[in-house]
């Protein structure tokens, strides 16, 4: 058997050149979203992450179910460091969004992110978990090569090509997103209310999940059922649809609609933007230049 063809395919899939412009847009959306998520809890860090708060440090790892328990606690800092470190996490996230710091700042922020996540796992939003994974993948990339405020001060612009690690991690972010969507859909198939088509009614009618009174949806039951079915189908088939050239834009548009809807109704904008951030990685640089950007920053 000729091994060169599978290897060529593999090589092309994981290691071929990627768009640094799209990567930069991903970075901006992801880190702005993470910065907002961190800022949202900034003034409650004493309650959430210190001995005087909800969870003593000695019990932090015990909080994880055994299957998910990390080997060691990253958050080994004293309580007096909690606020300054968290403030750095907020400021650093926005700085990285602006294109400052590159791989080094990215790595520091990810370590802090993991530290706070482990310190009190019970407080984690889905956006925190997914955002952390994307931040980890982004560490391997040249995410600040384009659309950086630092480029404004450079006299000459040198065209940089993506390196080997950038190519790999760019693809890994795409794969990770597909895995998340597929599993999210598969998990819903375990629920009777998703099969019944009425699952989203439980969300709309639950005042702890929505930010508006959505009980009027009882008068449009078919809309509830339609949205429930759409959600499951979209999630399960996202990986297949987004890899199809013809369906890609349509799929991503549906995804934007889904996440904007979630953001609007459930007010978890951080989660919505974290999920939408990698969408740009599925588009070509030509498309981005033509439709999205005319920035001098690039």
């Amino acid at each position: 058997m000729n091994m060169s063809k599978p290897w060529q395919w593999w090589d092309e899939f994981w290691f071929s050149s990627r768009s640094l412009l799209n990567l930069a847009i991903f970075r901006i959306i992801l880190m702005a979203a993470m910065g907002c998520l961190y800022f949202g809890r900034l003034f409650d860090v004493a309650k959430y992450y210190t001995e005087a708060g909800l969870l003593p440090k000695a019990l932090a790892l015990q909080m994880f179910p055994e299957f998910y328990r990390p080997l060691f606690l990253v958050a080994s800092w004293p309580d007096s460091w909690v606020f300054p470190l968290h403030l750095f996490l907020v400021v650093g996230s926005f700085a990285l969004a602006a294109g400052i710091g590159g791989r080094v700042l990215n790595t520091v922020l990810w370590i802090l992110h993991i530290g706070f996540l482990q310190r009190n796992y019970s407080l984690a939003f889905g956006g925190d978990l997914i955002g952390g994974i994307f931040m980890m993948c982004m560490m391997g990339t040249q995410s600040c090569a384009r659309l950086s405020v630092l480029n404004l001060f450079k006299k000459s612009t040198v065209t940089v090509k993506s390196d080997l690690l950038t190519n790999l991690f760019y693809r890994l972010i795409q794969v990770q997103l597909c895995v998340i969507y597929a599993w999210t859909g598969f998990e819903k198939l375990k629920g009777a209310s998703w099969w019944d088509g009425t699952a989203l009614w439980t969300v709309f009618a639950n005042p702890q999940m929505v930010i508006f009174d959505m009980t009027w949806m009882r008068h449009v039951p078919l809309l509830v059922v339609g949205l429930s079915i759409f959600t499951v189908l979209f999630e399960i088939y996202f990986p297949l649809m987004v890899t199809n050239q013809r369906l890609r834009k349509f799929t991503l548009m549906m995804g934007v609609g889904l996440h904007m809807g979630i953001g609007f109704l459930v007010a978890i904008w951080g989660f919505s933007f974290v999920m939408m951030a990698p969408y740009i990685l599925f588009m070509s640089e030509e498309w981005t230049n033509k439709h999205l950007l005319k920035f001098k920053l690039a």
Partner: protein
Amino acid sequence: MGITEKHQSNTKARLGLKLILSVWIIYHVFCIVVLPDGSSFLGRYFEPVMLPYANTLGINTTWNFYSPDPANTMYFSYSVHFENDQGEELKPSIQEYLPPEKDQIVTDSSKRRLLYAMRFLALDPHRLQVLMAPWICREYEGATRIYISHVVERIPSLDEVMSRENESVADLRVKEKSPGMQYNCKSKPDEVLL
């Protein structure tokens, strides 16, 4: 070394790097695909080689948003008691809810975190005893005893609200209160319970 030889050497080094990275890619992708259903055969079989890596990086997680079914409204109801050694009341007890908004809409992002944390704690009564109860004790200086109940307000089904359209959804919610748990604020938390 000539230019051609140097180029060949670079190409070989690059190929070697790609091969090493490829092994890691297969391992990493295997982890992120298998671990969301960690209780499956593959999850159990490969657990020893996946968990240390995946748990350290924070990639071992389930993706069950609103699944298997979206949760009902839930909160904790608790009373805080202030007594002396003879059990006599030193000041009136306090009745509170956690989250304080109870079954009302919460828009503040940070308060929503607390709401999520309450849901996480509610999944396991041991967490309630080891984590939440001592925290409530710390919040109320001089508290000697607390009594916590978990309250679930079941959301009526879509069929039910359609058939009883003259009644509000809030009225149709069915409240279920757990028997409750008493906690002595002066006792030391038992970490083993977690």
